[in-house]
């Protein structure tokens, strides 16, 4: 539940940054139309694909598929997190994303009357892509037997949290340690991915589910070592 909640939170924050930027520069009506359409699209896509993907599959095969997706997401987040904390890339920030998106939209020609389709499309694309990532992570984490309810609960908690931040406008975005959160999610998803993939291939982990903890520990230590080594090799990147 924790991994789903944190993963969903950071993705939803990125979507929120885009919607706020569109709303503050081009009008909240068009921003919400784009965002709500995208959110409904993601939910419908997950409802259509989820049961088809998870319903009738062999349990071992399903674990390998779920594990593979979690490894793809987890390793990518882990790689980016290490590069950012080592100074090879600028750190992620929904607030910076909000500023960039707002600047780009301000420079674009405003619409005098009628629906602002450009604004709706920007909000739609941002929410659809980030929402799809949330949907895939929740489906992957919830795909293992008994894990669907905690994964959905985690995503619901994230939605409430991000909605509350949205209501308080964008200021809290500045204070979130997003890079560290994403690295933590990368560690958790990679540990889950390794665990499920191996179980799907017939492995019996020593200490059963506690294997998730020592796997996460190994990945976290590896990430920390990689950050230390890479940070010594290059100077810090300039802030974005």
């Amino acid at each position, binding site marked *: 539940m924790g991994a789903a909640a944190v993963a969903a939170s950071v993705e939803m924050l990125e979507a929120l940054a885009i919607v706020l930027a569109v709303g503050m520069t081009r009008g909240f009506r068009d921003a919400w139309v784009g965002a709500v359409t995208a959110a409904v699209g993601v939910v419908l896509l997950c409802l259509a694909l989820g049961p088809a993907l998870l319903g009738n599959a062999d349990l071992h095969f399903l674990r*390998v598929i779920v594990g*593979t997706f979690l*490894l*793809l997401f987890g*390793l*990518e987040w*882990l*790689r*980016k997190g*290490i*590069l950012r904390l080592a100074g*090879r*890339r*600028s750190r*992620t920030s929904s607030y910076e994303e909000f500023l960039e998106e707002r600047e780009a939209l301000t420079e674009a020609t405003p619409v005098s009357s009628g629906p602002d389709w450009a604004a709706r499309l920007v909000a739609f*694309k941002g929410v*659809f*892509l980030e929402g*799809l*990532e949330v949907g*895939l992570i929740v489906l992957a984490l919830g795909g293992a037997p008994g894990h669907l309810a905690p994964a959905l609960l985690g995503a619901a908690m994230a939605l409430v949290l991000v909605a509350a931040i949205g209501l308080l406008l964008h200021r809290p975005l500045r204070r979130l340690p997003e890079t560290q959160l994403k690295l933590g999610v990368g560690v958790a998803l*990679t540990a889950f*991915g*390794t*665990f499920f*993939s*191996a179980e799907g*291939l*017939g*492995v*019996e*982990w*020593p200490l059963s589910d506690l*294997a998730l903890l020592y*796997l996460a520990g*190994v*990945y976290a230590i*590896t990430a920390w070592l*990689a950050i230390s080594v*890479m940070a010594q090799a*290059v100077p810090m*990147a300039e802030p*974005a």
Partner: protein
Amino acid sequence: MRSLLSSLRRLILGETWTIPLGVGASLGLAIVIRASLPSAAWEAAGGFCLAAFVLGVLAYSLRRTPRTRR
């Protein structure tokens, strides 16, 4: 539409081909090792083999990464 599809590809497979190819190779190698080991040995040690391959993929994906803004 093209940019949306490109974003979708990046979303699922990541920014580089190293990780998807590495994950695929790791699972393929794990299947080969499982077939060549006695069942009990694989059940006990297979997970650690896979974890080691995953660490290898991560380490390889970090090699010679150029500095970029995002």
